[in-house]
């Protein structure tokens, strides 16, 4: 599977016109074609594609993701140490934790908000609560994220100076004490985390609401109510668990997004995450980085899907029994 993915992405990347020597800096009349040829030889870009793929596979066999063409040959995946003890961090090593943290926080906030909202909407179906939640969700869903980001950056950062506008840390971060460091990080993370949560809220709320509505019309809920259970128990013990099952699938499907990050959000907020890394690498035709991200991304996605399946089995006894029967 991974070999298939890597072969396809390798071919697509190399079918795109241009290579690392055709960037805008190279379009300077002071530069010479010989030097670009030299670079191509240095990176084996003058060899046939299939040979290049072979070289890449050979390195991959030893888990060596190679070095970036475009950023002073930084390692693509994990740090290396040279003979003088200088540690060079890997590009993915630096970007992945940032993206993961932001997206997991965002997902957590989405879920924390979406589940109660969905429950309220289902309980007060067609009431004013439901209508206003639907309206709010529609707004959140339709507003372009980058536009909302810029507006909030302007209002919270420029007009009111409540939140930092971009970046991950303040300039004096190093000299802060631990508590201030945490506050500093949180305030920098606030906007980039909250905006995708608002725009992502709509889908999940709708899912919870519909799941809830389905379940509330099941016979066993009527039974539960008939036997005089209080409403709280009906909703939270009997209905909610069943209504949340489809959510596992949704979360499973969102895993590639959690790893991939978003180019637009990361660019606007100046966050050095995976989305920006990948986008820049494609524009620079930085093949090792593109390949590294695709390979690691697909591996993590496969693992994520596996985890989602396992969680499904854990949450739903019916699935478990199906597995046991084989």
């Amino acid at each position, binding site marked *: 599977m991974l070999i298939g993915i890597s072969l396809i992405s390798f071919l697509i990347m190399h079918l795109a016109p*241009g290579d690392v020597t055709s960037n805008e800096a190279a*379009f300077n*009349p*002071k530069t010479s074609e010989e030097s670009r040829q030299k670079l191509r030889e240095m990176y084996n870009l003058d060899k046939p594609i299939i040979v290049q793929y072979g070289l890449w596979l050979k390195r991959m066999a030893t888990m060596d993701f190679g070095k970036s063409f475009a*950023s002073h040959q930084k390692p693509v995946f994990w740090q290396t140490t040279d003979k003088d003890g200088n540690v060079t961090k890997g590009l993915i090593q630096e970007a992945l934790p940032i993206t993961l943290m932001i997206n997991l926080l965002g997902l957590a906030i989405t879920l924390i908000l979406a589940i109660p909202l969905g429950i*309220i909407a289902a309980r007060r179906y067609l009431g004013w609560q439901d209508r206003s939640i639907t309206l709010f969700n529609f707004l959140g869903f339709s507003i372009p994220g980058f536009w909302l980001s810029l507006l909030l950056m302007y209002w919270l950062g420029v007009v009111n100076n409540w939140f930092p506008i971009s*970046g991950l840390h303040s*300039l004096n971060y190093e000299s802060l004490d631990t508590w201030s460091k945490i506050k500093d990080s949180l305030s920098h993370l606030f906007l980039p985390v909250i905006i995708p949560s608002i725009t992502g809220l709509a889908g999940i709320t709708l899912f919870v609401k519909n799941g809830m509505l389905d379940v509330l019309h099941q016979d066993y809920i009527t039974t539960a109510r008939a036997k005089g259970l209080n409403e*709280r128990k009906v909703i939270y013990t009997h209905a909610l668990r069943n209504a949340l099952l489809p959510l596992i699938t949704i979360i499973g499907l969102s895993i590639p997004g959690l790893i991939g990050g978003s180019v637009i959000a990361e660019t606007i907020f100046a966050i050095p995450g995976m989305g920006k890394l990948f986008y820049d690498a494609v524009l620079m035709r930085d093949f090792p980085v593109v390949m590294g991200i695709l390979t690691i991304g697909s591996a993590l996605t496969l693992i994520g899907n596996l985890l989602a399946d396992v969680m499904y089995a854990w949450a739903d006894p019916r699935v478990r029994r199906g597995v046991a029967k084989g």
Partner: protein
Amino acid sequence: MTNLTSSFIKLASITFVSILLLACESSTDAPSSNLDYSKNYPVESGGTLVSAMTAEPSGLISMIAGESASSEITANIFNSLLKYDKNLELEGDLVKSWEISADQKTINFKLRPNLKWADNKPITSADVLFTWQAVTDEKTASPYASDFQLVKKAETPDALTFSVTYDQAYAPALDSWAGLQILPKHLLEGQDLHTTAFARKPVGSHYYKLDSWTHSEHLKLSRNANSVLGQARIDQLITRIIPDNSAQFLELMADNIDLMGLDPIKYSRIIPARPELLQKLALYKELGNSYTYMGFNLKHKPFDDVRVRRAINYAIDKQEIIDGVYLGLGINIASPYKPGTRWSNPALTPYPYNPAKARALLKESGFEDNNGDGILERDGKPFAFEIVTNQNKEREKSAVLIQRRLKEVGIDVKIRAIEWASFISRFIKTGDFDVVVLGWGLGLDPDQYNIWHSSQQAPGQFNFIGYNNPTVDKLLEQGRLELNSDKRMKIYHEFARVLLEDSPIIYLSAGYGLTAIHKRVKGIDNPAPPAGIGHNSQDWYIPQPLRRNEISQ
């Protein structure tokens, strides 16, 4: 049950408010807004200047990195042998003096005595020799190597003398030595320049040294005590990496950065419309060494016909492009040199907008509208072509204005905008285009052999429009051999005249570089001298009362 749902909402809102409060507390204080930035303050050293750029440098050895993000930073860290003064004349940087031999083939550089690297090791001619060897080395893929490969012999007769000999006189040589940043031999000998850790922790000789580099966030530079040209006034330079232009502008408005490059809309519409911004920001404009042009593929018919090229030149209203696309922040040019410098020929005037003349010229070259569809034909084929450009808003807009003006004289134009790398490999390298809208960013030396000489047409070389004019070839060759500035100037004036007459490209506009700098920064020359506002950045200063108070170290 409403109890429970409402308690959920309560919980959520409490969490939110607390996050909000938490964050508000940590926001930094800007100096109060009642400071008078326009007052005069005495010159004093200290303070921090925060600027931003859109891309992170790949490394800080500029001969390897090659991109502008890198050279912006290294220009504060490394010296070259020579530099340009405010009027764009060469003067010594690391060298005290230089002399050119009688046969114009040898240049002797005399280093200033007692120079030191930031790590206290002496700077000698051995470092210069090492740098030259590094840039010309087989294993180094420096984009700028070609100028230095012309050096036949480089010697260091003593620790302060460096001499180079060329096969024949090479006039752009001095400019090339003003562009090569000298690297320390003692730290780089035996290392691979493409992978060395030095590129992330450089040791240089200029006003500043690198303190820290936080990946994708910021680079901090502080004053170098050993600076070979004396001390700069501002203590610390911080460059933040903010890829998005709008975010940068918000940071500028919020007073978190002091300096940023602007586009015409921000410069002439957004900032002037806001008194609170005008109160704290000063706007500067300077002519860059670059221009936008529309270039013909001279190997394709009918662009091989000079009458057709001139006709199109007359048919395009350049002032309209300057006013519409650049909001008036550009000038119309007639030669490929920065106006106001010695190399630009003051006797030349741009082609005026004259559609009648354009129609007459087109008719003369055989184009007529025979079927009444509004499009001219020759030999039964309509005059139609495609303008290809990269995804650059200004260029796309210019192409649209051109499209309309050419339609008026009966030429059918289509526009295609394409991503840069694809653009270069699919259209430029293969020569498979009719017309391009592009720009040239040029060096300060007038030599443009690589762009116009007929020998420079191979794939990947820069005469991709296929210009071939023996007169121009000869002038370009002469210009390279002539080291006397006045004689050289005449050669390039003549070259620009022939070029304008021949019209292989149409100059659209030379845009201004636009910058906003916070008024707390004093000592900036306005209006900008030919070398631009940055030429004396070491003398800029930030008076104590105007400094930010959040950064204390």
